[in-house]
């Protein structure tokens, strides 16, 4: 049920992208997202597509696996597309019944759909190729300078990795409690929204009680194993940049420059090439 969502789940295989330092992937994803939203010329998306396509090819994650994850949010994409298409005011292109499609609406809808799908594919590529642990490690290392202004960076990353460790356990427990309640005649599927929400109470109460007990036990177990925050802690798997990581940073820079270049260039070109947002 809940476990069927493959979107952003780690995909175990060996590839150059998998081996990259998580910091490179985090920075890369951030730059990629920025590039998606700063760009406003249609042709630039060709550059984006080529870049994303090559990274996907390098990652050895099957395209099918990725797209299967997209299904879960296809509905959201379509909704965003339709809303943009019909609700943007401007020069009317076609109109029928009470609906109007405007030129601006069409362009916004297409841009939005492209941006969102690229955003989702791009960021799920990061989680598909990086173990959650690596991800939190990378985040901790990247945000380390914030420690100076008293942001509890180590604590945040520890919380994230514990949450990730317990998600599957809690999901399994939810399943178990649900089955136990169903065996006693509980009904989670019928009735209106309020009735359904009410039916969840006997599920949530035991789940919360158990989660608190687990948290309590875990805190004790961590203390018993000498955990005392991030100070003076060493790492079993410290992050270290390799040659390929610097190469990847170089390629990222090149990608950003290419986006900027093509964007400026196509803004000055006439015709179909200058199809831009708004």
């Amino acid at each position: 049920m809940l476990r069927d969502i493959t979107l952003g789940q780690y995909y175990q295989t060996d590839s150059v992208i998998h081996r990259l330092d998580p910091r490179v992937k985090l920075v890369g994803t951030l730059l990629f997202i920025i590039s998606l939203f700063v760009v406003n010329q249609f042709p630039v998306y060709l550059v984006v597509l080529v870049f994303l396509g090559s990274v996907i090819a390098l990652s050895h994650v099957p395209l099918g696996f990725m797209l299967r994850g997209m299904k879960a949010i296809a509905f959201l994409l379509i909704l965003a597309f339709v809303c943009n298409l019909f609700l943007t005011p401007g020069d009317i292109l076609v109109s029928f019944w009470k609906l109007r499609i405007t030129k601006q609406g069409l362009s916004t809808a297409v841009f939005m759909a492209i941006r969102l799908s690229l955003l989702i594919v791009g960021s799920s590529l990061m989680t598909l190729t990086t173990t959650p642990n690596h991800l939190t490690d990378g985040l901790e290392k990247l945000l380390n300078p914030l420690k100076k202004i008293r942001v509890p960076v180590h604590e945040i990353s520890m919380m994230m990795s514990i949450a990730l460790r317990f998600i599957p356990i809690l999901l399994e427990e939810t399943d178990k409690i649900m089955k136990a309640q169903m065996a006693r005649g509980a009904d989670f599927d019928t009735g209106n929204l309020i009735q359904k929400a009410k039916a969840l109470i006997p599920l949530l109460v035991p789940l919360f009680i158990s989660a608190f007990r687990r948290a309590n036990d875990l805190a004790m177990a961590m203390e018993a194993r000498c955990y005392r925050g991030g100070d003076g802690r060493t790492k079993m798997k410290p992050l270290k940049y390799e040659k390929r990581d610097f190469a990847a940073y170089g390629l990222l820079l090149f990608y950003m420059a290419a986006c900027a270049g093509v964007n400026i260039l196509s803004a000055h070109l006439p015709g179909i090439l200058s199809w831009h947002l708004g």
Partner: protein
Amino acid sequence: MDIIKAQDLSFDYIRRDEEGNVEGTTRAVNHVSLSVSQGDFVAILGHNGSGKSTFAKHLNAILMPTEGTVWVDGMDTREEAKIWDIRQEAGMVFQNPDNQIIGQVVEEDVGFGPENMGVPTKEIWERVEESLKAVGMYEYRKYSPNKLSGGQKQRVSIAGVLAMHPKCIVLDEPTAMLDPSGRREVIRAVRALNMVEHVTVILITHYMEEIIHADHVFVMDVGKVAMHGTPKEVFSRVEELKALRLGVPEVTQLAWELKQSGVNLPEGILTVEELTEALLQCRG
């Protein structure tokens, strides 16, 4: 030398009402004095609520005595400055395997303790390897803990403690949530640690079969040490054990009943072999 020494130890839990006002206290450990020598395998027995877990948490400085004193390798657990040395020397394994594994990969979990202690990276890897090998889980080092059986998870927890190079390991009902084969696995690993690595073991349990190999047994009841001695001595007092709502191993029970009905058998028979031997001698 005594690795663990408790003198006149008492502990009160404070009960609070809904607003958090103190309602009263529950005495969970009541004037307990005992000591454990380095290298021993000690078992603590007692039915639910007899104060075993409360006592165990004092050995790791998770709880501080209300009265009396606990020394771990000569260090008073009340000394703030020594708390991390105490926790390193007396490792602790808890009942629920899911609630004590922190890492998302077996080897990372075993490395958690050494990381906290500030052990250099290279040495962490050595310790992780040797600890996983000691409990026979080395082949599983790259697994997610969620994919292991209960017995395997507990062995990983034990490895996690071992990697901190403790002198003593306290196991609080490590087998309570396991099936019989998982239980055997864990007990075998614990015995091997004691015999091969000479780690002092304090095993808390209510399964009688698990303590027949102990050097010393303490039986707790309502926060007090009710009986103590070698397993043989303790198990020869079947009626007292029953009064404490504890059963004895089936073989011991059988031997005891045979003896009651007039068969001439020695006291405190713990294994099938011993009983066979004794019965053969009766006949011969």
